[in-house]
C-alpha cells in the first residue's frame, strides 16, 4: 500500500513541449544509468502526514513514516524513520529506527535506535546501540542487548507483538522476559 512506485520515481522532471508522432520513430528507451539506479535502490517508501493506518504494517524496504499508525510496524531487515509529524501508537520492530515524532509503544531496533531532539517516546526500547539527542523526551526503559544473542529476529518480533502495551503498563514485564541475556 505504501510502497514507492518506480514508474513515478523515474519520470523526467521536464514535460515534452511537442507531441511525439505515432509510428515514425519509437520512443527512446530509458538508458540504464548505474549511478541513478543506485540512488533509486537507496530510496525509501514514504507515508505522508495525512495518512492514517490502523493494523499491521510490514514491509521489505526502508520506510519514512510521517503519518499516523495504530497497530504494529514490522520491518525486520530494514530501516524505519518516523518523521516529525509521525504519530505512532504501535510496537515497532526494524533494523534501525530513527524517531523525530511521537511514539507510544515499544521499539525493537535490531541494530540501532536514534531519538532525535524532537522525539517523544513513551515505551520501552531494546536495541544494540542507542543515540539520544538532547531535547528528546523519553518515558520507559532502555535495554541494551549484547550483539550475537541467539534469539532470531522473528522470535524478537513475535515477542514485541505479544508485548504491545501502548507504552508503560503492566505488560512490560512480558517483553523484558523475552530479552533476558543468556550466559
Amino acid at each position, binding site marked *: 500500500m505504501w510502497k514507492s512506485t518506480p514508474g513515478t520515481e523515474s519520470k523526467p522532471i521536464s514535460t515534452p513541449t511537442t507531441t511525439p508522432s505515432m509510428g515514425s520513430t519509437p520512443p527512446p528507451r530509458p538508458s540504464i544509468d548505474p549511478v541513478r539506479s543506485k540512488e533509486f535502490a537507496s530510496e525509501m517508501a514514504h507515508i505522508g502526514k495525512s495518512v492514517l493506518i490502523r493494523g499491521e504494517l510490514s514491509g521489505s524496504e526502508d520506510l519514512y513514516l510521517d503519518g499516523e499508525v495504530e497497530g504494529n510496524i514490522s520491518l525486520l531487515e530494514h530501516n524505519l524513520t518516523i518523521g516529525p509529524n509521525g504519530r505512532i501508537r504501535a510496537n515497532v520492530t526494524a533494523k534501525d529506527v530513527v524517531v523525530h515524532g511521537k511514539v507510544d509503544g515499544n521499539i525493537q531496533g535490531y541494530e540501532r535506535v536514534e531519538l532525535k531532539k524532537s522525539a517523544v517516546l513513551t515505551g520501552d526500547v531494546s536495541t544494540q546501540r542507542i543515540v539520544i539527542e538532547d531535547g528528546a*523526551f*523519553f518515558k520507559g*526503559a532502555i535495554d541494551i542487548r549484547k550483539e550475537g544473542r541467539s534469539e532470531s529476529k522473528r522470535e524478537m518480533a513475535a515477542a514485541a507483538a505479544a508485548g504491545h502495551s501502548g507504552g508503560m503498563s503492566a505488560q512490560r514485564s512480558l517483553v523484558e522476559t523475552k530479552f533476558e541475556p543468556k550466559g
Partner: protein
Amino acid sequence: MAPDLLKFFRGSAASPQAASAAKGAARTQRSSSGLKEFSKSIGPESPKVILDLGPTSPTNLMRLTGMGHKVYNEDLLMGSLDSRYQVKGADGRLELSPTEFFKDSLVFEEGALDAVLAWDVPDYLPESLVKPMVDRLHRALKPGGVLLGFFHTREAGPEAPYHRYHITGSETLNI
C-alpha cells in the same frame, strides 16, 4: 522536609518556562559525594535496574546503559504538567489528580528496581504527589536498594532554578 519549606520551590521555578531557562543556561560541573556512594552501590559487577526521575538526559542514559545497566526514565515533573491528569475540583477549577497521575506513572512491580536517581525532583513536584511517589519508590526498590536525592538545606526562594543533572563521572555531575 517541612511542607512550609517545600512551598517555596513548588509551582514557581518548576514551570516549563523556568525549566527551559535553566536548560539554556551554561552547565557547571560539581562533585557529589552522594553520587560517589550511588556509583559504588550500583557498581560494574552485575547489571542493575535503575530508574531516573529527572528530565531525559542522554548523558545519563548512554552512560548507564553503556555500563550494562537497564535504565528506566520517567520525568515526573514534566508528567505532572500533563492536562490528562487534571480533574475538576470541588470549586470547579482544574487540579492535579494523584489518582489519575499514578495510573500512568511509577508503574513498577514490587522490588523491580535496584536504584533510583531522584535528584531534587521531590522539591519541585506538586505536594500532593510527593508522599505517594515515595510510597511507590519504596515498594519498587529491592531491599538494600539505593536512592540518590538532593534536598535544599535552606530556603532557596521561588526563583530556585530546576536543574537537569548529567552524570559525567563516578562522582561528578554537570548541572
